[in-house]
């Protein structure tokens, strides 16, 4: 197909050191990760101070939905990584819309779980566990919303016949942001749902 022939190839960054996206982006990503680590610390401290309340409240959550969400994000990340490799080697890619679908699925399931938990009578002001749960997963959800924007951006890029080096760096940046959204949930999920 002519579209394939027109795509430029870029060397895979395996033999030389390469910053994904650009250096400045990592100020933001690492900064965000540090902020979330502070959140993780709060959860751990609460667990240590009020273990009984923590465990009792934890029962109101839905670990099966949490597991499903975790798998959705992992699938999305794998698809994004694959899509990025394809973009880099100039091949056409169709994996990225599926990643977007996973992200939307996560948001929908999260909404369902919030509704279920609230329907059971638990709100952010019920106790500290639920305050942290709603606020921290809520902030994560806001990050995911931006991540959906990043995925959309990647899809738009993938439709172009040719990608400049600048485009590719932007794609790496968007992909890295998405992986961060995944990474943060990988810690939030066990801390809220699994560690009793």
């Amino acid at each position, binding site marked *: 197909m002519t579209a394939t022939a027109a795509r430029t190839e870029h060397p895979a960054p395996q033999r030389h050191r390469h910053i994904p996206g*650009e250096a400045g982006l990592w100020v*933001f990503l690492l900064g*965000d990760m540090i*902020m979330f680590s*502070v959140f993780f610390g709060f959860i751990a401290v609460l667990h240590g101070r009020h273990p009984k309340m923590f465990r009792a409240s934890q029962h109101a959550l839905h670990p099966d939905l949490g597991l499903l969400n975790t798998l959705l994000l992992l699938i999305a990340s794998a698809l994004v990584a694959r899509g990025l490799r394809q973009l880099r080697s100039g091949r056409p890619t169709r994996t990225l819309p599926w990643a977007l679908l996973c992200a939307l699925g996560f948001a929908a399931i999260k909404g369902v779980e919030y509704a279920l938990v609230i329907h059971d009578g638990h709100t952010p002001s019920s106790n500290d566990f639920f305050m942290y749960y709603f606020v921290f997963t809520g902030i994560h959800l806001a990050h995911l919303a931006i991540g959906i924007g990043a995925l959309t951006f990647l899809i738009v890029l993938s439709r172009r016949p040719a990608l400049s080096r600048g485009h590719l760096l932007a794609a790496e940046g968007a992909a890295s942001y998405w992986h961060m959204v995944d990474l943060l949930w990988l810690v939030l999920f066990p801390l809220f749902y699994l560690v009793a």
Partner: protein
Amino acid sequence: MSRRILTVCASFGYVFIALFFAALLIAHWIPPMAPSWSAERVAAFYTDHANSIRAGLVVMLVGAVTTAPFVAALSSLIRRIDSRLAPLAATQLVCGAANVAAIFVPVLIFTATAYRPDRSPDITMALNDTAWITLVMNAFPAVGQAIAVGVAILADKRPTPLLPRWAAYLNFWMAFLFLPSILLTFFKTGPFAWNGILSFWVAAGAFGAWFLVMTPLMVRAASRVDDDRAPADLETAV
């Protein structure tokens, strides 16, 4: 645009930080009192420290105005990056102006609170609540400001950008750090209360750090302004 005026305006960032933190200390804002204090304890606080609170507030009032030239310099720099970024410069200016108000409005409310400390403690507490909420929950203009600045910096097409690209990402991160304070309305204790780690300490730290990082960058950028070949239409006002 006069390079010297731009540099001086940008340097007001340092003046602001000095005045702001001096005021915080003089007025006993650090460490912040808790929303869970009783009305009597709040009233006693104002009675015991009346004059140092009043003095610190006057310092802070002056400090609020010093952000005006700083914000204006930042908008000028944004327009200098590219005259087509004028809407972003305007957004920054509007949000920055809101920030000036976001500082002096709570200052005036605190001043009223400290004016007659021997009044009924319930009234003092109500005024105190009003003052603290306007002081800590006022972060949203800063979010808009930081995002406008970040986007403008990334739009710089020069080989050596006027403001470094990492500063854009720093602004985006700061925007996130300012956000938790919006939740203080729901809490009287914990990290999101007006004296909490996330609403106060992280946000205040980020706020101070933002000035301390942006000011030297802006001063350095101002020194480069006359070196650039300026687009012809740059002298038009926002």
